[in-house]
């Protein structure tokens, strides 16, 4: 749709404007009513480091330590899940590949639960993302090995191996939870963690996800050309001089790291990785030169938007974010599956 170079620039500007609008609305929006003028002077004070206060101090605390980390985390988590979807759909050459569907998210969750169960999370908060990374990598590697034969993935094999790995991961998590029930402190931590979401997220969580998303994105930019050719097929990529095995391995590591970072901070939020890349591919075409930055912004927009939606309409009820993304994403997934069915026969 946005074919010419100029149209693409307009599209990116629209995305950036939308991100900025969502950030401003998210900062204004919350249970406590803080006027815009106060927020402006809070930021001015914080940046200039002067201590003349025209606002109550608790307001500065809410803005700087509650709302700001929350929206940074929402943007980063959305962006990383969408980017993972883009990479996986290209590596597996399959429109249905995405972190939640092929069992990578659940692998990351299992890793995180294991870190809590084993008490590693008490030693260092970084153990949760680390274990999540290990879990995500193992799940992704297994699905990759099973479903990829001679550079091609069979849709049925991909989905079935994803379902099997997810089931295994989820049952292992239930087992760990059941085992930990006689130690209520551990069980409570596991339950609290599995609920996920953006509530109570702090700057510690920002430190976990922001560096990983930004560095992964920078790495990914190096792969925008190889990703294009890999999308066409292994033999195409090899014939124009791309070391497919190495490229795939690096991309799998990057996507495991991003899924793990997102899952360990906000829990499993499904369907962003599936839906966002698809819509953007329809709008911008398959070239990763545009698709990668557009997904970064698009993922951020989706999760910020979903969070704002939950907060405004259901302010008094604690509705998990995953509910919103799944309500929108699941019908879309079914639609793609029906479309694929014609391609299968």
């Amino acid at each position, binding site marked *: 749709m946005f074919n010419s170079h100029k149209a693409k620039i307009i599209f990116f500007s629209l995305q950036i404007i939308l991100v900025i609008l969502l950030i401003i609305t998210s900062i204004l929006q919350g249970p406590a009513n803080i006027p815009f003028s106060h927020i402006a002077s809070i930021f001015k004070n914080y940046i200039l480091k002067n201590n003349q206060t025209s606002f109550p101090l608790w307001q500065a605390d809410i803005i700087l330590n509650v709302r700001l980390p929350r929206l940074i985390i929402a943007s980063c988590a959305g962006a990383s899940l969408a980017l993972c979807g883009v990479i996986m759909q290209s590596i597996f050459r399959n429109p249905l590949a995405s972190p939640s569907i092929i069992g990578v998210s659940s692998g990351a969750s299992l890793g995180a639960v294991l870190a809590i169960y084993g008490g590693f999370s008490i030693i260092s908060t970084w153990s949760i993302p680390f274990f999540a990374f290990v879990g995500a990598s193992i799940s992704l590697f297994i699905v990759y090995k099973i479903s990829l034969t001679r550079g091609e993935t069979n849709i049925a094999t991909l989905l079935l191996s994803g379902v099997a790995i997810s089931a295994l991961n989820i049952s292992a998590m239930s087992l760990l939870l059941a085992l930990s029930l006689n130690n209520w402190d551990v069980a409570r931590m596991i339950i609290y963690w599995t609920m996920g979401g953006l509530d109570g997220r702090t700057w510690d969580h920002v430190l976990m996800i922001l560096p990983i998303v930004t560095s992964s994105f920078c790495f990914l930019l*190096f792969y925008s*050309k190889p990703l294009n050719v890999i999308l066409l097929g292994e033999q195409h990529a090899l*014939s*124009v*001089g*791309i*070391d497919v095995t190495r490229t795939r391995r690096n991309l799998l590591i990057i996507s495991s790291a991003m899924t793990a970072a997102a899952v360990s901070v906000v829990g499993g939020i499904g369907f962003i990785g599936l839906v966002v890349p698809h819509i953007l591919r329809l709008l911008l075409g*398959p070239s990763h030169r545009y698709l990668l930055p557009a997904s970064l912004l698009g993922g951020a927009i989706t999760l910020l938007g979903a969070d704002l939606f939950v907060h405004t309409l259901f302010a008094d009820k604690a509705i998990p974010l995953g509910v919103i993304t799944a309500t929108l994403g699941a019908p879309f997934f079914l639609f793609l599956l029906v479309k694929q069915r014609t391609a299968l026969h």
Partner: protein
Amino acid sequence: MSSTLQSKHVCFSYNKRPLFEDINLNFKPGECIALIGANGAGKSTLLQLLLGLVKAQSGEILLNDTSIANISRKKIAQQVAFVPQSINLPYAFRVQALVAMGRTPYLGAFEFETAHDKAIINLALRKTDISHLHDRLVNTLSSGERQRVLIARAIAQQTPTILFDEPIASLDICHQIETLQLIQSLSQAGKLTITAFHDLNLASYYCPRLILIGTKENGIKTIIADGSPEQVLTAQNLAQHFSITADICKTKEGVSLNKIRPIKNR
């Protein structure tokens, strides 16, 4: 621009089952070579070996006297281009963008195509007669057009050698001839072209040198015959490796097979 491609005593096995034994081949610039053999004879595998996509168990493929196993994919892609068999292109890339992928081995990760690259891309589009399609999406093209897009990409790679894996398999007769004439003109321009074929008549008409791959008595595949159409398309080879009999007629251009009949009692 001159480059040599050789295979020396190459043996290859797939899943520990020996497939090829003692493949010795020598190619010179400007040769137009047809690779023939029955289904499953290993034509695609031999092309993949020559391209370094699969590794030989023993022996070596030499590209400009260096073993291909020691050359980076990028450097190989500057010497050898490959037109894969699958012309299924389900993604909505523009023809121009797909042909531009042929410049990948010459460009860094963030480099855009220079005016020089753009000129090469346009030349490749013109040579394959698809300039008018440059703004079309590849998933909306016919299979003949897609085949020419992939050949244009290989031309844009500007390699001294191009390998084709059954480039005419899914084309109608007119596009088959057009594609073969294009391949012929590439070898006349000094490029080495190696093409996997099923149609023996077209192979012997367009290619002065035929290489027949087949199975030996011990069940392992190797080069059965290598030479001019007259030397390769003998009654014995046809019967043994294609299970056909035919009237072999010598013509001005080489050999033509008439009244091809299958041999039933295999």
